[in-house]
């Protein structure tokens, strides 16, 4: 896409603008036309970042199933156009804004490209803070006197606990310099199992994307809640397993 930098540069000269103070608006600072996220679509000038979500930033629909090819192309094109070199001679505002846009671009791309981060991001847009889940459940359990529904399922907890016991043993053995090969092998085997489980969870999560997008389209609050809770559950399990695999690797490698 080509765009002209001439625009109405002349009007800028008469304005004394501080780089950080103007409020970003939906119209171009330079020519007043409607802008898209990064550039004015009429005069092409770079704009101060709008507080938009990452999907809007890329002009993508707010869906979990993302056309990754399209995302990638958009990323590379924008990276090129926002490159600091392009603005080396621009005015101070353009330099500042292109920098801000670039860093936003990188955050947005990194988040949307990664299946887990993308899902967590969409949940966050929904107001779900994964970190808060556990605390909220405890408050609920306390006030109702009921047993708290563990965010992590009991069978997984058992497994995590037992594996941790074995890891502890192996750590102790290693300290003495006499690790039991049978234990090492056993832990290695469990690690493989965990990695498989991890992969399966990610697949299950991806399978939910379509359902989520459909629920959003249909506007059914109930479907939405159901899919959302399912995704939270899967993400929690996945995080758990990921941490465990990390610990196992640490012990095995040392």
């Amino acid at each position, binding site marked *: 896409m080509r765009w002209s930098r001439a625009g109405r540069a002349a009007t800028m000269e008469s304005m004394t603008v501080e780089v950080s103070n103007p409020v970003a608006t939906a119209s171009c600072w330079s020519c007043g036309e409607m802008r898209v996220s990064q550039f004015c679509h009429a005069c092409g000038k770079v704009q101060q970042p709008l507080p938009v979500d990452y999907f809007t930033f890329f002009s993508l629909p707010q869906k979990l199933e993302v056309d990754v090819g399209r995302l990638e192309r958009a990323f590379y094109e924008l990276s090129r156009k926002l490159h600091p070199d392009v603005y080396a001679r621009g005015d101070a505002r353009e330099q500042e804004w292109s920098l801000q846009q670039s860093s936003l671009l990188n955050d947005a791309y990194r988040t949307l490209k990664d299946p887990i981060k993308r899902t967590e991001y969409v949940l966050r847009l929904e107001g779900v803070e*994964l*970190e808060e*889940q*556990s*605390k909220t459940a*405890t408050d609920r*359990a*306390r006030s109702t*006197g009921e*047993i*708290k529904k*563990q*965010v*992590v399922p*009991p069978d*997984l*907890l*058992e497994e*995590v*606990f037992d594996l*941790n*016991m074995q890891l*502890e043993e192996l750590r102790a053995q290693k300290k003495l310099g006499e690790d039991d090969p049978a234990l090492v092998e056993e832990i290695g085997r469990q690690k493989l199992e965990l990695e498989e489980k991890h992969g399966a969870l990610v697949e299950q999560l991806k399978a939910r994307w379509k359902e989520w997008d459909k629920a959003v389209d249909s506007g059914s609050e109930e479907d939405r809640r159901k899919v959302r809770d399912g995704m939270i559950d899967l993400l*929690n399990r996945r*995080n*758990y397993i*990921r*941490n*465990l695999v990390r*610990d196992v690797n640490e012990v095995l490698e040392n």
Partner: protein
Amino acid sequence: MAYSDKVLDHYSNPRNVGSLDKSSQEVGTGLVGAPECGDVMKLQIKVNPQTNIIEDAKFKTFGCGSAIASSSLATEWVKGKTVDEALQIKNTEIVKELSLPPVKIHCSVLAEDAIRAAIHDWKKKQDVSKPATVEAR
């Protein structure tokens, strides 16, 4: 991050580490986890069936220093209490006692959850074994 002296004390000198016989009628076991960090905590209580007083408590925690300190403290606190008294223990009290910073609050939540889960497990055992005498005495 700097741990408070009390955390360090429990961490380097944890009270009541170990386990109780899971299958015993008098023992309740709580196994809980924090998805935020992947830590797990097991807390067990041994209850006198006549008095409902928690006579012994053990824990084993795989987790951060705050989680270890929280569970260590929790076992100290529940001992000598009746199960109903122990149910009153709140994570905020643990936070206060150990001066935990906000990022470590979930570690204390874990300890409260573990107490509740252990008591719940114990109560379940009592219901099953002698359904008619739950409120004995």
